[in-house]
């Protein structure tokens, strides 16, 4: 029993130490063949904005649409391949359902067969449970996300404390502008600081 507890403790400690947070691959400078247009992104912090908005000039939307159409004309196979590559929703549901059934039926058979009561069976169950816990702990700890400041598009995203993550995301509303002379603009809500709140940029 003591041995088992020691092994379990070591496995759990090792799982927390094993930082499995693999960095995102860097963006390739070479175009990957997807439709794109060169433009400028203008980021503005607006204290009166209530939500993040991405405003794209209509002319640039038209350009992008033209690129997409030319891509569609010459690449039906690629579209079919893209449509068929990856799992569809029904594939995911059915495979998950059958996987669950496999575990349920396997577990029931294991218990009914009496193997669970034997020493070897108990050992096997202990190993499986410990492996599952340590794997889950690794996943959970390794996938701990960035703070809330990096998960919504506000002025706080630009704070140095958030820079260490190197990325962030949040909801944005896409709008089309009829002003063809303007660039693509990202309006970022930047609510004024209330009294007593520390200035994060200092």
């Amino acid at each position, binding site marked *: 029993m003591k041995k088992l507890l020691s092994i379990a403790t070591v496995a759990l400690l090792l799982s927390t130490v094993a930082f499995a947070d693999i960095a995102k691959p860097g963006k390739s400078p070479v175009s990957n063949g997807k439709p794109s247009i060169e433009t400028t992104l203008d980021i503005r912090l607006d204290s009166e904005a209530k939500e993040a908005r991405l405003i794209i000039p209509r002319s640039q939307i038209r350009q992008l649409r033209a690129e997409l159409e030319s891509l569609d004309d010459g690449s039906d196979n690629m579209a079919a391949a893209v449509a*068929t590559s990856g799992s*569809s929703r029904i594939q995911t549901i*059915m495979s998950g359902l059958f*996987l669950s059934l*496999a575990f349920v039926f*396997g577990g029931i*058979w294991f218990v009914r067969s009496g193997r669970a009561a034997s020493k070897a069976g108990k050992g096997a169950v202990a190993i499986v449970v410990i492996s599952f816990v340590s794997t889950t702990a690794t996943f959970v700890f390794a996938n701990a996300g960035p703070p809330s400041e990096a998960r919504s598009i506000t002025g706080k995203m630009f704070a140095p404390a958030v820079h260490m993550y190197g990325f962030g995301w949040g909801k944005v509303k896409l709008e089309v502008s009829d002003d063809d002379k303007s660039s693509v603009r990202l309006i970022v809500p930047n609510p004024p600081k209330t009294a007593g709140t520390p200035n994060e940029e200092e």
Partner: protein
Amino acid sequence: MGSFPLQLSIISVLLFAGPHNVMEFRYFAARMPVRWGRSRLYYSIGIGGVLLLTAAYLTLYFSSGSWLWSMESWQNYAAVWNTTFVIWVGLLFYLRGKQRSRDWSVAFAIVFLLAALAWVVPQYFSLALVYIHPFIAMWFLERQMRRTKPEWLRAYHFCLLSIPFFLVALWAMLWGQPNLSQETNLFWRIGQHAGSEVLTSISSHVLVATHVFLESIHYFVWLLLIPLVDKRALPWNLNDVPMFASPNGIPHIFATFLVISLAITLLLWFGFAANYTTTRDIYFAFAIGHVLAEFPFLVKML
């Protein structure tokens, strides 16, 4: 086999496809009891499953180019067929376990795991069935040898163990070879059958050679080794077929089936001579029936 895989594939199918099906039918007939008795449920599900799955497969096969299907719905239907197939095999294992008073319900756990794979990686699953099928004949031979020639088992097991070495040697010889010619529809079909469009990173030369090697063993087992091990499987020993020789048998019906199967074999040869590509496509579509029919009789031997 490594040098001329396309030619060997064409010749082996031409010469042996039909006769090996006749030998399989003859072997299954010899193993089928006249009265099913307590195996009634087992044979009903076995034979019924063969008929239903064959009909569903043929529907899938011959309607694959129809405008009624979208790519996604066709793929889903193929996955449903694969799932039904593995569940049917699992059910046969479970029923056989009940007949032998053993708990083989673990078959369902394995079957559901396979079903999950059939949905996650449908193309690889279907290709795996193509490559596993030749080993079914070897399993039949092993089970038959246990019953009629147990003294040959040791040598047979050594022969089985040598197969991976031959495969590795074949792969080592052919790994760097370019893809085989696809100048005709037939050559393309042979490569596609061996998985050239699924395993695109592997040369079709390797795939076709591997498939031809395994299929040749499969034909060899049915045509030569099983009759050698079990004299009841010799096609002319009709007195060893219960359906023919038993007083309660159905001799006329069985004889008719036998004559029809021989006639189909002759027709197949004429078809191959007249239009090899089309005949090959039709043959492999209907051949799923014989592949499915192997399972009830194999599981019954366990």
